């Protein structure tokens, strides 16, 4: 979107008077950015307008808001120093899975929003700084982040299913699927760090591919029967997981679960990489896998968790979820 188009968008959404509230706060050396869903071309007349004021001043303020015309606006003042730090962090850091999973979405979100932002008064003295924010890099990191959290919620869905809650399993499977789609979209440059726009982004990205679009729609909607939805969605998620496993370094293993009322041979995919970074899932899935044979070795691998803590947690989890102690095989 060009600055002129962005200005027209601003005036049609919130009106000139409201826009002047923002510009009246603009200092000589400050840069005014517009970002968010309207800049991406997916917003609507109620979408909030996200403004950023980039300043040399290090006194950042809480986000300000105002209502105008049909919508509302948010205006956040950011110091150039903070943006410089953010750009440097994302430029220079080689993230492993633990690093990506631990990244707060709010930081990815800010990086992405600055990367797509349109300077309304010219980039001026911040042109070089803003040029360091890359949409491609944002999509690359967002794709990795979404994949890991999709895996984590896939694990949670399986745990909820094993604990007998199809509804909670459906919620986690739905979120895992939405994150999986977010990751797919990020891979083709259409990532957006908010799940609420995933459907619109997919509609745009897969406009000429009705089968792909229908599959995304099926994944994002629960369907008429939650149990069927969980089963088909977990199949899709497992397919994606298998596709990206590096052959030289197995990222997953299949273990058998023998739980009460579970048919023999029921399988849980244990994703080691996820388990190394999301301790909660590691403990739970490891416990479900087989407390006697495997759980303790897996749990000991979790950073920051001592064997004693692990044993106590595994016992608690197994007791809660399966209604038994951790002592024996079932």
């Amino acid at each position, binding site marked *: 979107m060009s600055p002129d188009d962005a200005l027209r968008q601003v005036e049609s959404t919130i009106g000139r*008077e*409201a826009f*002047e*509230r*923002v510009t*009246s*706060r603009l200092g000589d050396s400050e840069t005014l950015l517009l970002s968010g869903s309207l800049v991406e071309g997916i*917003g*609507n*007349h*109620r*979408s*909030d307008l996200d403004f950023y004021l980039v300043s040399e001043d290090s006194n950042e*303020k*809480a*986000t*300000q*808001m*105002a*209502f*105008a*015309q*049909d*919508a*509302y*606006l948010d*205006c956040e003042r950011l110091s150039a120093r903070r943006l410089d730090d953010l750009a440097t962090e994302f430029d220079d850091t080689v993230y492993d899975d633990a690093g990506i999973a631990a990244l*707060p*979405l*709010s930081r990815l979100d800010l990086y992405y929003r600055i990367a797509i932002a349109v300077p309304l008064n010219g980039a001026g003295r911040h042109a070089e700084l803003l040029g360091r924010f890359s949409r491609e890099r944002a999509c690359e990191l967002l794709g990795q982040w979404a994949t890991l959290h999709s895996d984590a*919620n896939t694990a949670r869905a399986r745990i909820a299913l094993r604990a007998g809650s199809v*509804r*909670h399993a*459906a*919620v*986690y499977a*739905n*979120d895992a699927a939405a994150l999986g789609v977010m990751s797919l979209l990020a891979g083709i440059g259409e990532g957006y760090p908010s*799940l*609420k*726009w*995933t*459907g*619109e982004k997919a*509609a745009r990205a897969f406009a000429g591919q009705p089968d792909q679009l229908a599959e995304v*729609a099926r994944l*994002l*909607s*629960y*369907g*008429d029967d*939650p149990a069927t939805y969980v089963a088909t969605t977990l199949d899709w998620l497992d397919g994606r997981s298998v596709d990206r496993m590096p052959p030289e370094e197995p990222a997953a293993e299949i273990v058998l679960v023998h739980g009460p009322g579970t048919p023999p041979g029921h399988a849980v995919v244990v994703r080691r990489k996820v388990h190394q970074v999301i301790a909660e899932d590691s403990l739970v899935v490891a416990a479900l896998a087989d407390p006697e044979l495997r759980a303790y070795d897996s749990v000991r691998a979790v950073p920051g968790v001592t064997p004693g803590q692990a044993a106590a947690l595994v016992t608690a989890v197994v007791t809660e979820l399966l209604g038994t102690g951790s002592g024996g095989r079932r």
Partner: protein
Amino acid sequence: MIGSVSEAGQLTPWLRRWERTVKLRQDVMSSMFDLDGALRAGQWELATHACRALLTHSALLALALRDVYVPAFVRREREWRLAIDALADVAPEHAERAWQLYLTPTRTDAEARAHGSRVLHFVGWCDGSGETALADALRAWADSAHAFRQTCTTLGVPTTADWYLVGPEAQGDWYSEVLAFLDKDKDA
């Protein structure tokens, strides 16, 4: 004259709980904007997402209004899990209704509109208004934020200043501006 005290409690936790309720009303209002915009624009997947956010935020609000406070999570699905389980203890019939709404598939604009109406009815139960629209949610948030800030001022408790971008020609404060916005929006 000295009045009777029916219940005594600590000020700071009480203010924090109130502030959390104000924030939840803001979340409900914000999701209402999403739902209204999505339905008018025919963006039914956004509408579905907004409905789920509304169900989560309004369930949390219903709990807060009953003095049940669930920890805040960044991810909505974690908040939903805690909120719906807590609501099942407090109001099982409404929790069951919320579950059914949460899992309802919407595949068309017409389904999204009908679903949106049912969700708004549930939101109305949660906030005690009976039936809620965007204007009601905005008004409820503004009233609660106004009362909260006034109370803090009276008590000498500092609050965030300069959080609202009042226009240079404004005749009043943020609250009167929001009420004016509501009047205009109603006319539109």
